[in-house]
């Protein structure tokens, strides 16, 4: 499959400060989470993708268009939702969306029709007729999202799309992103600090730290633990169960929150767990193959990125 975004050894310096250091990356369709601590180079990477800043060295392509040379084509095919609170002063919500649609070369009437349609989709009902200055943080967030998708771009770059939203709106926003990727084939680069958001909707994850790519892989691959294991939670006293498992020659670790981790292939362990539980008279509340949490992956990546400098 051809990568939507293909970066080769991209380096970007701001004076003496190196914001991106030899970044090579391939991003394919679906939702990709772009993670990294503050100052990791996420925003710089987005600006490089949009052609807003010139790279110091390296090359890359987005949808087959060459970065730095075909910026117009790239921007015409990308919908960008900035993190910053940016808006067009003195205009109503629907005027703002119509305006950016026209900048993306939609005819005026069609831009207005489309603006209304997208604002409906984004959950901005009557607020669309209010000037943007009167919007709450959440409304502005939805407006920026509407502006990003109004011209139906194949690639979306969303910078913190859920920040400032209440829990319900956050879920709705994630559903919108999921829907665009699933039903409309949009490639989404989701840049955020909220790890559960990435975990819930992303197919792949890129983690930047200190300007370098520390991790870039599918979420399924990253979640797979180094050693196969099974997480078990019990109802009742676990001491006898632990002893019974150890007698069967199975490695077991006790977690602080009461969970147990049995080392081995989950398929082979499951029957033995049932047998041991039955013998000890305890109930099995849950039994799932162990997975690395995104938080662990992120912290490990950032730690590695920090120690490598």
């Amino acid at each position, binding site marked *: 499959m051809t990568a939507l975004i293909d970066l080769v050894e991209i380096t970007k310096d*701001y004076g003496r400060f190196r914001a991106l250091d030899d970044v090579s990356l391939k991003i394919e369709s679906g939702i990709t989470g772009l993670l990294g601590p503050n100052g990791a180079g996420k925003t710089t990477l987005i600006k490089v993708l949009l052609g807003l800043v010139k790279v110091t060295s390296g090359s890359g392509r987005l949808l087959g268009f060459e970065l730095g040379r075909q910026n117009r084509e790239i921007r015409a095919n990308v919908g960008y939702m900035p993190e910053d609170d*940016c808006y067009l002063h003195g*205009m109503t919500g629907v005027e703002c969306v119509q305006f950016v649609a026209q*900048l993306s070369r939609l005819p005026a009437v069609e831009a207005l029709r489309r603006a209304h349609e997208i604002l*409906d989709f984004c*959950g901005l009902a009557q607020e669309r007729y209010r000037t943007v200055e009167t919007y709450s943080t959440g409304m502005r967030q939805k407006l920026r999202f509407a502006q990003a998708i109004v011209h*139906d771009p194949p690639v979306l770059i969303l910078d913190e799309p859920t920040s400032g939203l209440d829990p319900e709106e956050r879920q709705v926003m994630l559903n919108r992103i999921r*829907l665009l990727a699933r039903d409309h084939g949009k490639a989404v680069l989701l840049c955020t600090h909220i790890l559960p958001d990435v975990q819930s909707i992303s197919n792949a994850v890129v983690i930047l730290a200190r300007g370098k790519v520390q991790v870039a892989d599918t979420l399924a691959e990253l979640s797979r633990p180094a050693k196969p294991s099974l997480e078990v939670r019990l109802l009742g006293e676990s001491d006898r169960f632990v002893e019974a498992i150890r007698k069967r020659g199975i490695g077991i670790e006790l977690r602080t929150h009461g969970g147990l981790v049995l080392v081995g292939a989950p398929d082979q362990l499951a029957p033995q767990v049932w047998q041991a539980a039955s013998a000890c008279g305890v109930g099995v509340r849950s039994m799932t193959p162990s997975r690395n949490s995104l938080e662990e992956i992120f912290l490990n990546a950032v730690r590695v990125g920090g120690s490598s400098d």
Partner: protein
Amino acid sequence: MTESSKGPTTVLSARSDLTSVPSSRGVNNLGYRGWSDQLVPGWMRWWVITSVGVRRAWQSRWLRRMLVCAWLPAIWFGAGIFVWEQAANNAGWRQFLLPFIYGMPRTSEWDGIRDAIQSANLDSSRHTVWAWLLLSFFRCPQAVLMVMVVGVIAPPLISQDIRSRAFLLYFSRPLTRAEYLFGKVASLWAYLALISTLPALALYLLGILLSPNLSVVYATWDLPLRILGASLVLMLPTSAMALCFSSLTHESRYAGFAWFAVWILGWFTYLAVSAALAINASQEMYASHHYDHYGQPTVTMIPKESAWTHLSPYHTLGRVQQWVFGFVTFNEVLISTAILIAVTLASLGITYHRISAPMRV
């Protein structure tokens, strides 16, 4: 656009994924649909910015009032053309006209105009008189109104985009900085043309309509071109400078203050320096002939425009417009022209730099 997004595929909105009450959606809520119709030509992007700039400026009640005022002087100058054309056929009107002729700039053509009136041969001086009327129209009411109109429109044009960080919205679209800048400048030009070029052209047409025959068109065919030239002289440096001020701050009131300060301070500095030089008799004077309140001819000595003219943007613009209408030679306005070009280029350069700056970090 992607293949999958083409076509009118209708899906439920994301909100409906969470709620089990789809009837709560508006009837027009069609969810997300792909869009793949015909795009407008790319070179029209600046027009989007211009049209929005014009519409937003139009919301100002003060601006609308000023535009009405901007057309009122055209009535006065129209009357001037009317009187001139009446004088061509009527001796009484010629006597009425003579005092006004003394108010014209003392040029080589001045004597010719006076002689033409006295000898009832006005056709020979029609071009000069019309040019003088149009120049006066550009200078006295329209240039002053231009300062006020630009002072209302220009300050927020870029400063509000800086304050609301709208550059990311603009430049994440297929829009270049030059297109953005041109779109902003063009919205200023639209209003400047409305208060200067269009009334001046209307005056010219009025003159044609009032003239005895169409041979007047042959005699004055170049005046519309001169009107366009004078308009360009008025619009290019002023709009560039106004946008430059706007780009230097995120508070539009500071930009407005700087704009008016440049014109007012420039004017008064020039007057003060000229007066001081006149008192010391170190400046060349020319005689201005008028009629006083009692109808007696009188002469006022006025200092000739000198290098100090360039302290005042108003007078510098006026000098170049005098050349455009053929009252002075190009050599006489060489420095003024160079200054205006330098101001225009420097202003555009600074503005371009300022709108590029937020993208660099």
